[in-house]
């Protein structure tokens, strides 16, 4: 079954009814938008259950287990509870900004769903500047959180807003640099083209095999971009109570919660598309509908990894978080991008035999990864030596 053909036959059927072409296109667009919206909201319910259950199991608890089999209906019960709760607006809040912030928070994530290819050409808008679009609307989310933090007129919310800007803007740089590496390799910013470019070796020629360092870097930076542990300083309860969304209650809080889970899913989907082959997999050229299965399987796996890390690691200190970004991730991402650019250019200029470019890329990635790890290891050793020397002074060395 070809999903594309299904859509085209639907258009033909509508035109057969005697509806003018412009209206058919309009109906099609609205339907497409509603389908993406429906997928996103249903996904959020499933993901909330999955994350809570996984975290419960990993931490040797049961997780949700009261409502429905295995607690499956728990998210719906939670949503109903949030709907019926009292909606409180702080007396001093800046009303318009306060109410606009959760809308922007959800809006920016839903806009990101538009360019994700679920299968070959099954994508909301197949635009040429897909990666740039992802970065553009990704950065819009910062604005929503900043508005929430400021409009609440609460000092903890404002501090949370500061942290949002500091963290998200810093980690946007390595993530943007590393997203450019698959773009260099394929020569297109279109996400569908990038997924298509990983179809060698029976659909298993994924980018992660040839650029493991870039993938790991993306994973770490995505944890920070998605405000997940160990980078969840934006909502560190012990420091700033709950961060930018502290004054939000009932459905408005639920919107931030929704945006948080959808954001994680989008980050997993981007990782899947850029590094894990997107909808590519064995036999996908014969049965295009398999692409959807592969895409969701890989994205859920990435989501599982994110949930796993969240359930396992403690939180970083804020100076460690910033130093790690600027002193480790940014230089590493720059080196990787420069190396990839040189290798791709060499490949086209010297017309190297096929297969050389991927091998060179792999070697470069492994070298950069090992160099980074050894530098970090040496740094930790000197830190520990210094700590041992001043064992009895309470002052902690700064990173």
């Amino acid at each position, binding site marked *: 079954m070809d999903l594309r053909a299904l859509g085209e036959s639907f258009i033909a059927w509508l035109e057969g009814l005697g509806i003018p072409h412009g209206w058919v296109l309009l109906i099609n667009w609205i339907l497409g938008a509603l389908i993406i919206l429906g997928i996103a909201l249903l996904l959020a319910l499933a993901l909330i259950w999955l994350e809570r259950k996984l975290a419960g199991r990993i931490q040797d608890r049961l997780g949700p287990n009261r409502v429905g089999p295995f607690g499956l209906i728990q998210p719906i019960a939670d949503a109903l509870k949030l709907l019926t709760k009292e909606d409180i607006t702080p007396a001093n809040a*800046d009303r318009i900004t306060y109410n606009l912030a959760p809308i922007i928070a959800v809006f920016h994530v839903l806009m990101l769903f538009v360019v994700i290819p679920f299968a070959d050409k099954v994508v909301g808008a197949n635009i040429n*500047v897909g990666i*740039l679009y992802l*970065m553009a609307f990704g*950065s*819009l989310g*910062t*604005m929503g959180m900043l508005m929430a933090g*400021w409009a609440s007129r609460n000092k903890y919310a404002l501090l949370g807003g500061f942290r949002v800007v500091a963290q998200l803007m810093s980690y946007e740089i390595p993530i943007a640099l590393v997203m450019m590496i698959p773009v260099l390799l394929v020569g297109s910013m279109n996400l569908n083209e990038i997924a298509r470019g990983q179809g060698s070796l029976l659909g298993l020629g994924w980018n992660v095999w040839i650029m493991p360092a870039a993938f790991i870097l993306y994973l770490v930076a995505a944890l920070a971009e998605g405000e997940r542990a160990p980078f969840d300083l934006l909502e560190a309860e012990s420091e700033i109570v709950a961060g930018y969304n502290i004054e939000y209650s009932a459905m408005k809080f639920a919107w931030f919660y929704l945006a948080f889970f959808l954001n994680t899913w989008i980050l997993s989907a981007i990782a899947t598309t850029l590094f894990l082959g997107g909808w590519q997999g064995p036999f996908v050229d014969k049965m295009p509908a398999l692409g959807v299965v592969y895409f969701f399987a890989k994205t859920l796996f990435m989501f599982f990894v994110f949930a796993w890390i969240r359930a396992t690691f403690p939180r970083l200190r804020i100076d460690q978080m910033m130093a790690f970004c600027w002193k480790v991730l940014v230089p590493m991402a720059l080196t990787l991008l420069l190396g990839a650019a040189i290798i791709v250019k060499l490949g086209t200029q010297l017309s190297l035999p096929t297969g050389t470019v991927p091998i060179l890329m792999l070697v470069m990635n492994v070298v950069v990864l090992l160099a980074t790890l050894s530098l970090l290891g040496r740094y930790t050793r000197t830190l520990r030596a210094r700590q041992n020397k001043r064992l009895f002074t309470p002052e902690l060395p700064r990173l």
Partner: protein
Amino acid sequence: MVGQALFLLFALFTLLMALGTVVARNLFHAALFLVGVFFGIAVLFILLEAEFLGVAQIVIYIGAIATLIVFAIMLSRNVMGKEAGAYNSQWRWALAGVVFFFLILSWLLVRMPFSLVQAQVPADAITQIGQGFVGHYVVPFEVASVLLLVALVGAIMLARER
């Protein structure tokens, strides 16, 4: 026809937001109106089939510049008050400068002959822009990046603890 209506709608939106930026009493609101202006301009770029410019507008102006402006405002004094004032004692000089700049701009706009070309936007517009950056326009491009680097180093020197 639809394109015309959309253009008018978003042009009106952009103008209203620009007006809001200027007249808002609260500095934070002014910054948010500015974000609206940038968004409207991005939509206008997309209506002109310049996808790349539209998305770059959002990345650079909303994602980076507007966020930094808002951040700077949040670090200024009295940010939690109802009236984070938009005026100070220098407003007369600012007004004079703005009027002068407005006159120059309107003079330029009236004198400038806009050449209209009946042609489709090429499909590989992004490729051409990219090749332009590292080919024909490489010197201005590099000079701009050196300028940014100088600004960066200068900011670090100013903020450094001695």
